[in-house]
C-alpha cells in the first residue's frame, strides 16, 4: 500500500496563532503521508493541536494564524494556491467530518438543500441530478430509504443519524481523502461501532484515504494503519497503533497507555502521568514532555529529532524499548 504515490503529503507543518499580542506556536514541524486506502490516526490529549493540524490541511485555520510547511494533495502543493483555488481543490479532494455534527450542519436548511448545494458548487451538477445523487448517498450510508430525509431538518435526527448525514456529505464529491475529527465521541458505543464499520467499508470500496483524529488510542487501534501521537504541538511518536499500545517507545505514549483502565486490574491504582500539560506559550525548551518525564536528564534540554526506534519514529533521547507488561 505504502509504495503507491501518497494522496496527502505534509512536510514540516507549523501553525502559530496570535495570542495576547504575540505569535505563539501551536503545531510544530509535523510531517505525515497518507496513501490510497490508508487510515492514519492523529492521537493526543485535549489541546495538543489535532484539530489545528486538520484545519491547516483543509486551509481553514483561525484568523491571524501563520501556517508554514508543505501540504500536497495528490502531488499538488496547496499552500501556494489562491484561497479561491484552494477552496475548490479542497472542496472536491478532501471531505471533512467535524467533531460535533450540530455545529456543522445548518439548522434551518433541509438536509437535501445542504447536500445539493455542495454537489452543485463542487461538481457543477444540475439540481435534479444533485438531488438524486444526494438520495443515493443517504442510502449508501445506511439511512432508511423509506424516510424522506432530504426534506428533514437536523433537529429531527438522532445523533447517529446526524453523523451518517455528515459522512454522506463528506463523501459526496468523491474525495480522495476524508478527515474525520473525533467523529464518534458524542455517540453511544453501539452506534459508534456502526459508524466505524461504515468508514471502514468506504475505505475498501473506493480506496478512500483517511486521517482520523481521536484522543483514544484503543479506538483507533481497531482500524487505523498508523498512528501519530502528539504532545504539546509536537509529533512525539508514529507507528502502528498496536505497536503504540503494546510497545510504546516515547515515555508520553507509555504514560497514555498506562492511564487507560483495563480489565482484570479492577480497583488497583491507575498510573496517571504526573503534572499537567504545559499551556500554550509556555512550552518548556528542548523536549516538551521533559518536566513530566521519568527518564528526563540534561540532554532533554535540547529538542530531540524524530528517529527510528524498532519500527516506529520517536522524538526522544531516551526511548523505551521493552513491552508493556
Amino acid at each position: 500500500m505504502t509504495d503507491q504515490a501518497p494522496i496527502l503529503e505534509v512536510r514540516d507543518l507549523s501553525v502559530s496563532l496570535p495570542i495576547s499580542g504575540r505569535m505563539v506556536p501551536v503545531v510544530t514541524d509535523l510531517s505525515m503521508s497518507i496513501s490510497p486506502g490508508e487510515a492514519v490516526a492523529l492521537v493526543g490529549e485535549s489541546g495538543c493541536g489535532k484539530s489545528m493540524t486538520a484545519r491547516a490541511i483543509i486551509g481553514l485555520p483561525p484568523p491571524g494564524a501563520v501556517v508554514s510547511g508543505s501540504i500536497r494533495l495528490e502531488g499538488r502543493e496547496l499552500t501556494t494556491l489562491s484561497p479561491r483555488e484552494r477552496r475548490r481543490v479542497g472542496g472536491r479532494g478532501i471531505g471533512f467530518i467535524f467533531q460535533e455534527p450540530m455545529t456543522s450542519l445548518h439548522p434551518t436548511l433541509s438536509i437535501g438543500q445542504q447536500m445539493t448545494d455542495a454537489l452543485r458548487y463542487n461538481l457543477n451538477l444540475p439540481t435534479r441530478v444533485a438531488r438524486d445523487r444526494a438520495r443515493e448517498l443517504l442510502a449508501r450510508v445506511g439511512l432508511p430509504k423509506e424516510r424522506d430525509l432530504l426534506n428533514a431538518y437536523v433537529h429531527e435526527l438522532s445523533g447517529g443519524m446526524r453523523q451518517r448525514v455528515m459522512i454522506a456529505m463528506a463523501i459526496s464529491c468523491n474525495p480522495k481523502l476524508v478527515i474525520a475529527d473525533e467523529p464518534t465521541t458524542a455517540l453511544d458505543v453501539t452506534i459508534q461501532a456502526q459508524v466505524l464499520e461504515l468508514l471502514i467499508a468506504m475505505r475498501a470500496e473506493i480506496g478512500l484515504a483517511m486521517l482520523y483524529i481521536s484522543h483514544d488510542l484503543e479506538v483507533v487501534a481497531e482500524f487505523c494503519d498508523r498512528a501519530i501521537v502528539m504532545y504539546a504541538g509536537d509529533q512525539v511518536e508514529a507507528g502502528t497503533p498496536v505497536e503504540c499500545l503494546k510497545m510504546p517507545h516515547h515515555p508520553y505514549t507509555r504514560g497514555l497507555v498506562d492511564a487507560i483502565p483495563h480489565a482484570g486490574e479492577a480497583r488497583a491504582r491507575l498510573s496517571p502521568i504526573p503534572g499537567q500539560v504545559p499551556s500554550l506559550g509556555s512550552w518548556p525548551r528542548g523536549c516538551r514532555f521533559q518536566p513530566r518525564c521519568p527518564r528526563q536528564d540534561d540532554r532533554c534540554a535540547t529538542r530531540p529529532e524524530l528517529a527510528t526506534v524498532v519500527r516506529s519514529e520517536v522524538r526522544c533521547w531516551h526511548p523505551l524499548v521493552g513491552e508493556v507488561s
Partner: protein
Amino acid sequence: MTDALLDVAGLSKSFHQVHAVRDVGFTIGRGETFGIVGESGSGKSTTARLVLRLVEPTRGVIRFRGQDLATLSKEALRRERRHMQMIFQDPFGSLNGRMTIEQLIAEPMEVHHIGDSVERRRRVGQLLAEVGLPEAARHRFPHEFSGGQRQRIAIARALATEPQLIVADEPVSALDVSVQAQVLNLLLDLQQRHGLALLFISHDLRVVEFMCDRIAVMYLGTVVEEGPKAEIYAEPRHPYTRALLESAPGRARKGAPLKGDIPSAANLPTGCVFQSRCPRAFDRCTHEAPQPRAVAPSHRVACHLAEE
C-alpha cells in the same frame, strides 16, 4: 439485603410524552460502588436526579438509610441530604464562577449547619489536602484551574458534609485519560478511607469495569440487566449488554454491530424496548414486555430468552 444504604423500586419518571425512566429498581450496599451504563438518553442522569430527589418521581419508592424519602417532611428531607452528595460531568459548569474555592467547599457545610465559620475554614484546608490541591487554592476562583483540578474541587465539595453516598454522573467523561486516571484514583482512595458508597454513571465501559462492584445496564429508560460486574462482563445475558460490550473499544470486537437507531423515548414500541435492534427478537418480543428475572443470585435480566 438488610444493610442496604439505598433501595430503589418501581421508579418511573415521565416528562410530558417522554418516558425517561420506567420501573427502575436496584439496591446499593454501604461502601459499594454501583455503576449505571447505557447510551445517551437512556435515563441515567434522570435516575441519578430521582435518587437525590432533585426531580419528583412519577411513581416508585426510594429508601435511603432505611427511610422512605417520600414520607419525610421537607425539613427531614433537607437534613437527610447531607448524607448524599453529587458530582456532575461538567467541571466547568457545575461550580459557581463568582465564588472562591473556600466558599464553594464551605457552602454545603453552611447549608447543613456544620461547625462554625472557624471550624469550616479549617475543614476546607483538610479537604483541599485530601483531594490533592494546594492550600493556596482556597482564595482562587474556578476559572484559574484545569478540568481535572475543578473536578477535584467538586469532589472536595461533595465530601464536605461527610456523606454516605456520592452520586457521580459522568465524573470523568470530560477529562483526558491521564487526568481521568488521577480523578479515579482519588475516588477510590476516598472511598476506602471513608467507606463511601458510590452511584457511578458512565458511558465508558472500561471505566465502569474498573470502578464498580455491581452494575445496571439501561436502555430506553429501563434496566435491562443488573448484577455483579464480574459476572456481567464475563457473560452478559441480555442481547443489548452483549452488543454494548462487543462494541466497546479495547475489547476484541466480535460479529457485526447492531443495526438501526434507538427508538424515541416519546414513542415507545409495545413489547420489549430492544426488539427493533435485537438480533434474536421473535414474535413474543413484539407484544409482551419481558419482566426482570433472576438468572443467578442478585443478577437479573429482562429478556424472554433469559428464561430457560
